[in-house]
């Protein structure tokens, strides 16, 4: 047989053996190339993903190699679509120190879009995560999701339509989220069980809740503390809550700007908290969610909170009626949105006095709607007096 005949046969072979294209034409060749590069990566390697919309059916994984850069051609130029994902719930899953992810978009993952776990010095820059079908409970939980990390920088990123939090940093230390844009998620930006975090110059808009600082029980990282939230625009977070029940964010009332739940040592200043129909800021202990916990090291209280120089501007609308917190605002505040609500739940172990939890609010604007809602006593003594909470 002549070589040309063989070549023709080989061609026919290849043609008839190739399976019909899956919806979205999965680019297996590019996937294999990138995943092979990630597996064989050496410290300091730059792995470039070309411009274009690339459909993948499995996640890209990087493990154990320090200092790898995953580089797209631009946030709106390199788009990794996981619409037809068959396995592995994430888009990018990384367990490697000093990773830099930049200039790309991850869309439509079955689970979380970009998860980085147990890594030191994680940077995500100019990265976008989204779900193309809009706000759905079936979307993945988190967009940008570093967890258990030390040293996290999220800069100039964008996250939308996550069914839990667009930008979620969990159980991490030394975290900076800046210049980023979270919109139409359930939670825009969430800092959970973190120590030493900072969220600044971000825009969190049209989510259910704008920026959340939470501490939850039963986690290996234990209690978090120290978070600074400043110079953010927290705007019109009135989106319906589309989180699946069971998740803590499913309790967030649409129309909430800031929430500090079991948070310790938080300072929020120079934020614009504008256009919320339920409440601008909530300061609450974990008791408020009425879930029991079995973690003897867990500290459910919120204390050492400082709010100053923020601008609160309410939306003129009826507060949310879909969640308990919204109903509470409707019932106890005559259907009027509030600026700052504090649950007033006290830790008996702290020194007594008029402000044992050390909540300090320096917001001298006229007409500020504040109240201690006395949640521990079924809202019996709701008190709008701000004096006990003046900053020293």
């Amino acid at each position, binding site marked *: 047989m002549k070589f040309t005949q063989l070549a023709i*046969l080989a061609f*026919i*072979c290849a043609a*008839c*053996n190739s399976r019909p294209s899956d919806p979205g034409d999965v680019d297996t060749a590019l*996937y*294999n190339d990138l*995943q*092979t590069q*990630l*597996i*064989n990566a050496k410290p300091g390697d730059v792995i470039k993903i070309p411009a274009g919309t690339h459909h993948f*059916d*499995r996640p890209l*994984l*990087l*493990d*154990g190699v320090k200092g790898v850069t995953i580089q797209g051609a631009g946030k709106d130029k390199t788009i990794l679509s996981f619409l037809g*994902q*068959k*396995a*592995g*719930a994430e888009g990018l899953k990384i*367990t490697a120190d000093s990773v830099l992810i930049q200039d790309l978009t991850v869309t439509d*993952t*079955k*689970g*979380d879009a970009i998860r980085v*776990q*147990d890594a030191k010095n994680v940077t995500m820059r100019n990265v976008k995560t989204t779900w193309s079908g809009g706000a759905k*409970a*079936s*979307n*993945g*939980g*988190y967009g940008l*999701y570093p*967890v*258990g990390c030390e040293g996290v920088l999220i800069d100039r990123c964008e996250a939308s339509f996550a*069914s*839990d939090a667009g930008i*979620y940093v*969990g*159980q991490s230390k030394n975290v900076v989220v800046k210049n980023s844009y979270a919109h139409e998620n359930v939670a825009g930006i969430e800092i959970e069980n973190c120590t030493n975090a900072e969220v600044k110059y971000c825009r969190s808009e049209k989510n259910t809740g704008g920026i959340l600082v939470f501490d*939850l029980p*039963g*986690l*290996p*990282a234990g209690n978090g503390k120290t978070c600074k939230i400043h110079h953010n625009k927290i705007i019109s977070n009135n989106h319906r809550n589309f*989180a*699946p*029940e*069971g*998740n*803590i964010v499913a309790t967030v009332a649409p129309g909430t700007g800031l929430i500090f739940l079991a948070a310790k040592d938080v300072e929020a200043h120079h934020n614009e908290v504008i256009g919320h129909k339920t409440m601008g800021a909530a300061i609450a202990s974990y008791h408020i969610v009425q*879930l*029991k*916990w*079995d*973690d003897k090291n867990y500290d459910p209280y919120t204390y050492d909170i400082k709010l100053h120089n923020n601008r609160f501007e309410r939306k003129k609308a009826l507060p949310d009626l879909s969640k308990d917190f919204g109903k509470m605002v409707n019932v106890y505040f005559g259907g009027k949105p509030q600026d700052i609500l504090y649950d007033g739940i006290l830790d008996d172990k702290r020194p007594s006095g008029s402000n044992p939890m050390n909540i300090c609010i320096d917001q001298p604007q006229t007409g500020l709607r504040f109240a201690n809602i006395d949640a521990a006593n079924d809202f019996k003594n709701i008190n709008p007096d701000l004096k006990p909470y003046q900053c020293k």
Partner: protein
Amino acid sequence: MKKQFKKGRILAAGFLLALSFCFTCQSPAAQKKGMAVSGPVRFDPGKAPYPKLSDYGFFTGIQRDLQPNAGVLPYELITPLFTDYAHKARFVWMPKGTQAKVAADGRLDFPDQAVLIKNFYYPADFAKPEADWDVVETRLLMKIKGEWQAFTYVWDDAENDAELNIVGDIKPVSWQDEKGHKQNIEYLVPNKTQCKSCHNRDAIIQPIGPKVANLNKDLRYPDGKTENQLSRWQKAGYLAAGDHGQKFAKLAAWDKPESGSLQERALAYLDVNCGHCHHPQGPAHSSGLYLQADEQDLAHLGFCKPPVAAGKGSGGRQFGIVPGQPAASILLYRMENTDPGVMMPEIGRVMVHTEAVELIRDWIAELKGNCN
């Protein structure tokens, strides 16, 4: 071995025949050949991984018949990891004169250059597993300079040999199950990094199965003898002396009611299928859900535990396990699901393990207490 490997496969390898398959687009798997290899096991840790499975010589004769070579010992686990109903033929090989020790927690501490060999195959008819089968992949865990490394070999369509694959693959697989139903799935071959997502303890690759508690059972060996695996390993020189079986309670067989109580069998299943990740030193530690068999803390086991980062994986349910209420338990919801964003384990299956779902459902149903 339960499985009697068939001999005398047709060796004729017709190039023209292969071409004609291409030409007519017939499934190449319709004609199996099988390639024979002879000689002893070859393992040079400096050169591993070899490009082909046959390069190691772990199997003698027709490779797809998986007949172990001298020094290659088959083993089974009391409760194995579920992988889409794949049958698994497991073997261990160690260099001459070396043996495994038993660690304090009952795991086997293997010597350097030990190799664990796991073949994934599907009988054409599950009612007659010895009649015909498709071998899909063979995974090797090899200990080199004190560190385990994982490599996967994917069998070619003619099942002559398997080739090293580090990037993973999706392979169509079909069979007829015990009830006579035809099953077709897209079987997922993991990539090298995914291997580590299960075989992981403190971010270091570790075997999952070989623990004293899970190996302590009888096996029919290729020489026709039926013997306890621990004593056979000792006779072969592969396991340090001592009455290890006395020291560690035997794991219950998840599917054999005579082997343990419902709770023991449920916990054995969760230990093997979930506990490698859901462990304080495993990759799922950030969830605070620990499912290894020795977990004593009910909250860590998921009792009345709210999810941490489940997203849609919660299925709208409030807690991991609600005693007495399987239909309200997230654990069961995730086992019953095949959406990659919901299901657990995260990888390694595209099907629901129906029989295990029943076991866990029955266990949760009989649990006492409530989450109020």
